[in-house]
């Protein structure tokens, strides 16, 4: 899939940039130490210090997310909210402290103060991630995937500008790590870690021979060593030019950033791998279903074709009638299959509205027996009624038998008339029920019955028993015949009398 390839290229590119960034940071720190060079801009230290708090917050978010991925959902959500609250208060306090000696308006507009409410997008993004980790639903995963790739690129771009000394060109909070973009992308990175935890957990991530694990193992010491060496050397060397507070903060910042970046990178790689696998599985499953669907339809077509060919060759009227009745039943099964599978695709609920199915049955009976030219009207009166999926096919088959029976036998010798098919909620039943009535104004119940009619009756009776429905039929006083079927919508036996 080109979309997937693009995402994977983005993730890989972000990983390369992350490594480059780490290398540059280390080089710059060493250069500043040994050569006393002015490579390190003064704003660099400030930016790192500011971002430390944020990175630390995101680190804690990550831990909370990991907890949630391990199935302890309520604690991490509460913990995360507390962490966000503390972080907000810390940032607000920092804004207050820095703004004390300034005019009110400047204090209100102070960037650190404003940074606090920028945690909101991060919170939202994090909740999405948590939902993705807990539900593993495909559309969440898709959203998470896009967010991770986008976030990685933005993050690396922003962080790259720090060691390159571009911070003073863009004096905005994006570089202090409190902007929504930075927040979002770190959260996205940790989301990757969460998904990783879902597919194995940290021990596997650090020990398995996968590319992500290998990279994490290789990068971790590289990331942690320079700051430590820096501290030791700084004490001995006179070339040190920073305030002592700066170097401690610098070391902490470098350490936290390094670990965060490593997590970001390995999480994103793992995320990419597991998402690709998920997508592959989903695609495979869809292909399988489609093939199966296609085969079912073709098999049914062959069945209908064979019956059709046999009917053409049959010399006896009775054989032809039997084969035609068989065709009608298979047609009903086909309609039920079609409507139920379409319904499952579009709605996915367990219950289905009977109207379209009964309507298809009526159309099919009307066409097959050519009612129109015989002067018989088939009226369908359907009210919305939802029944369990398992009830739909039997009810449709019953409707087909009853309507076919009326169409064939109620109007002999060119007699015209009408057949009413009524489907809707049962009027009498106390429970939610469905009622199917087939009534005609024909000659009334037949005196004698052939084997074919017997089969029709057997089908109706057996199916009624199967779905726990009651069946009743009677001659209509004004002439004609009425059959009534009442079933409970949930498919269980009705509470009323059973005939």
């Amino acid at each position: 899939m080109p979309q997937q390839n693009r995402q994977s290229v983005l993730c890989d590119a972000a990983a390369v940039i992350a490594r480059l960034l780490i290398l540059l940071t280390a080089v710059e720190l060493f250069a500043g130490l040994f050569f006393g060079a002015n490579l390190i801009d003064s704003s660099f230290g400030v930016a790192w210090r500011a971002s430390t708090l944020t990175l630390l917050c995101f680190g804690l978010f990550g831990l909370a997310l990991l907890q949630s991925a391990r199935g302890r959902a309520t604690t991490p959500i509460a913990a995360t909210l507390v962490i966000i609250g503390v972080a907000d208060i810390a940032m607000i306090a920092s804004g207050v402290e820095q703004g004390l000696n300034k005019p009110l308006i400047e204090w209100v507009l102070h960037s650190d103060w404003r940074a606090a409410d920028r945690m909101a997008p991060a919170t939202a993004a994090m909740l999405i991630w948590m939902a993705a980790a807990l539900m593993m639903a495909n559309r969440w995963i898709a959203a998470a995937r896009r967010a991770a790739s986008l976030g990685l690129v933005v993050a690396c771009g922003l962080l790259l500008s720090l060691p390159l000394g571009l911070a003073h060109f863009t004096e905005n909070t994006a570089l202090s790590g409190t902007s929504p973009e930075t927040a979002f992308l770190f959260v996205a990175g940790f989301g990757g870690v969460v998904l990783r935890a879902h597919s194995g957990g940290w021990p596997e991530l650090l020990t398995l021979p996968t590319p992500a694990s290998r990279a994490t193992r290789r990068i971790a010491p590289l990331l942690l060593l320079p700051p430590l060496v820096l501290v030791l050397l700084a004490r001995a060397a006179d070339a040190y030019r920073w305030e002592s507070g700066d170097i401690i903060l610098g070391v902490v910042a470098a350490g936290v950033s390094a670990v965060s970046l490593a997590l970001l990178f390995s999480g994103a790689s793992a995320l990419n791998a597991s998402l690709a696998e998920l997508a592959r599985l989903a695609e495979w499953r869809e292909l399988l279903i489609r093939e199966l669907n296609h085969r079912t339809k073709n098999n049914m077509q062959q069945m209908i074709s064979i019956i059709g060919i046999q009917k053409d060759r049959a010399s006896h009227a009775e054989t032809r009638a039997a084969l035609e009745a068989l065709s009608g039943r298979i047609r009903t099964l086909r309609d039920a299959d079609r409507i139920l599978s379409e319904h499952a695709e579009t709605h996915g609920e367990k219950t289905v509205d009977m109207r379209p199915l009964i309507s298809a049955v009526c159309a099919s009976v009307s066409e097959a027996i050519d009612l129109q030219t015989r002067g018989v009207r088939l009226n369908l009166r359907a009210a919305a009624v939802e029944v369990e999926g398992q009830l739909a096919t039997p009810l449709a088959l019953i409707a087909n038998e009853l309507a076919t029976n009326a169409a064939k036998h109620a109007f002999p010798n060119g007699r015209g008339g009408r057949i009413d098919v009524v489907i809707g909620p049962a009027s009498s039943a106390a429970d939610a029920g469905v009622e199917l009535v087939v009534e005609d104004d024909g000659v009334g119940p037949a005196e004698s019955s052939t084997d074919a009619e017997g089969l029709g009756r057997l089908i109706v009776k057996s199916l009624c028993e199967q779905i726990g429905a009651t069946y009743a039929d009677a001659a209509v006083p004004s002439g004609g015949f009425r059959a009534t079927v009442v079933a409970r919508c949930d498919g269980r036996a009705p509470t009323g009398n059973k005939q």
Partner: protein
Amino acid sequence: MNVIIVEDDFLTAHHLAHACRRLGLDVVAKADNAADATRSISEIKPDYVLMDVRLRGAPDGVQAAIDSHPNCPDTKFIYVTGSSEQSTRARIEMDHPYRILIKPVTEVDLGAAFD
């Protein structure tokens, strides 16, 4: 009125042909692959074509129909397919067909489609 049946399943083709004859249509040719279908349709220029989507080998029925259109602008294409999923639907719709019938189809369905 005449019809060409393009279908790679023998039984189904046979049944469709029978059904068409009974509905009063003249079945003038059958084909089970796109190349034969395009050739027959272009030569005969029938009133109707019953077109399956998956045929023996490539290309598919939609391509065969598209290839035939320049030679017979008045022919009505009725697709008879076993694939009801969205992607196949979309591919067929691209050809602006006269009708789409989803398998299994019976004589009754065909009768309604030719109206």
